[in-house]
């Protein structure tokens, strides 16, 4: 695993901003972190970057604990936290050259990086005159600078106009081809859906659910069943080769993933034969947005 977060807790006074979170990110995996404001997304990012200390639990990057190795760990991570804050009087190239010298990188790579994010290396305009979209693209170039294994983007399209969003999203998709691990925090669900392989949904500092984006967008034989006593219902399928897993959006629901050969009617019959009262049995074409909204709805009012 590239990142392993185990039972991470971070408290501010009596309030837990991150409450017993466990996550794993494999090399090359792209994880989207979603959640309403105050759900603990930024705190989790700060903990991974070593800007905050854990109250309890551990976070390892490639087997190395973030504390006390936070400075060494940061060399292996490229990050863009909202808007990059660079030297306003320096051009894009001079800003990158400063960081290239600081991190002892090949200065020759700077022009190449600027071209990757569609900025002109010959442009002399100071950073202060850049549009927000240009600033974000320069921030992405800076994140890519040390060829990191992990990229962290926190709300990279916040405040951008539609054209800027499309440009930044296009660059993030291009970065996907580099095969790096990515953590993307965003309020924009389509952005996460386009870029990430999986999503973790946070609320009140807890992970409510993790899902693969492919599963959420599956239009084939995925079904959601609501029965009384869902725990025993999943056991009905234990030796049938049918994948049955609990659905975090509701206590009595579970998800069935069938292969092309497996018939939904047979699964329904099995449930009834087991004496379970089936309240609902529907084919899913959920999508991230529906899943997120259902999850938020089912946990509304929880603290």
């Amino acid at each position: 695993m590239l990142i392993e977060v185990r039972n991470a807790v971070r408290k501010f006074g009596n309030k837990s901003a991150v409450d017993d979170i466990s996550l794993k990110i494999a090399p090359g995996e792209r994880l989207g972190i979603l959640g309403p404001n105050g759900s603990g997304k930024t705190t989790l990012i700060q903990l991974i970057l070593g800007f905050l200390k854990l109250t309890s639990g551990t976070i390892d990057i490639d087997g190395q604990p973030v504390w006390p190795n936070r400075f060494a760990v940061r060399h292996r991570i490229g990050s863009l936290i909202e808007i990059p804050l660079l030297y306003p009087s320096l051009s894009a190239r001079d800003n990158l050259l400063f960081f290239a010298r600081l991190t002892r990188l090949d200065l020759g790579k700077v022009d190449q990086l600027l071209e990757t994010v569609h900025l002109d290396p010959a442009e002399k305009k100071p950073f202060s005159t850049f549009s927000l979209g240009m600033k974000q693209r320069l921030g992405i170039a800076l994140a890519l600078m040390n060829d990191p294994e992990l990229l962290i983007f926190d709300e990279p399209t916040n405040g951008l106009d539609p054209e800027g969003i499309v440009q930044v999203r296009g660059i993030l998709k291009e970065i996907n081809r580099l095969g790096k691990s990515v953590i993307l925090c965003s309020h924009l669900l389509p952005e996460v859906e386009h870029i990430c392989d999986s999503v973790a949904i946070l609320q009140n500092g807890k992970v409510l659910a993790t899902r693969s984006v492919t599963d959420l967008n599956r239009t084939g034989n995925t079904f959601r069943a609501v029965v009384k006593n869902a725990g025993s219902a999943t056991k009905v399928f234990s030796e049938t080769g049918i994948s049955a897993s609990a659905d975090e959006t509701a206590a009595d629901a579970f998800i069935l993933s069938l292969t092309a050969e497996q018939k939904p009617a047979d699964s329904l019959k099995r449930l009834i034969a087991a004496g379970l009262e089936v309240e609902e049995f529907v084919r899913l074409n959920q999508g991230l947005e529906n899943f997120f909204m259902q999850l938020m709805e089912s946990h509304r009012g929880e603290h």
Partner: protein
Amino acid sequence: MRTGDNMNSGTMAEIKASITAELHKVYRLKTHIVVLAVTLSLLVVVLVIEFAAMRYVAQQAQAQGKGGPANLNSIWQIFHFFCQYVNPIVIALVVAFQTGKEFEWKTFHQIQLKGQTPANYVISKLTTFFALAIGTYILQLVIVLIDYGVRTAIEGQSFDLPLMQIATDLLYSLTAISLALLLTILMVSASVGIVLTLVYLCVLEMIIFPLLGTLSGMLDKPAVATALGYSPMKLPERLVNSAIAENYSGAILVLVAAVLIPVLAGWLSYFVLNRRQIGLIR
């Protein structure tokens, strides 16, 4: 796992990289041009005025039949004045502005994201601005030496240099830089850093401390005046006075104190940064 030697060489390489990046940044921001343009042009103007004034006084004295050798010590007094007041104020304000702006833009946070440690940050800042101060001092010294050399040749006087004074004059700028850096890091703001630096250098060191010294003399409290004589910006002067009085053990103690001030200020800056970095995100 890195061995001790590898770790040391890695740390040294990181410090060197931080200093190189900072020096290049100052070069690209043209900070050195601003500092040199202000301090050197002011010095040249003052030296020209001094030359004109000395010539006028000499002509007046000759007209009255009171001609005598010109007092060229005033050239060294001007250099001493620049080292004691003008250079520290100009360079300290540049330090406060540049360092403070970095915090206002939260650029330090960006630098931290790239793995630079607070210690490297402070070391690179101090080294860069010390280099700037030493460069200014050397260029001013060259100008003054040329002026003094030409004037002694014209006047037919001996070329005697106040070496002790010249050597210790460099300490004023180094002390002011360290204090300006510390004040700005404490306040995390360019504008507040500039105001505090000005208050310290111009109000406390130039007005309040001397006033308190005078008052304590009048009130027969010599201990207060003695204590005020050890304020950071007074140490170089005290060092020269001790050396001139051939009190060498006293001079060494004052020298140690003068060197300790930048070291302490640098350490305190590091300590503050190390604790403050967390708050810099948003």
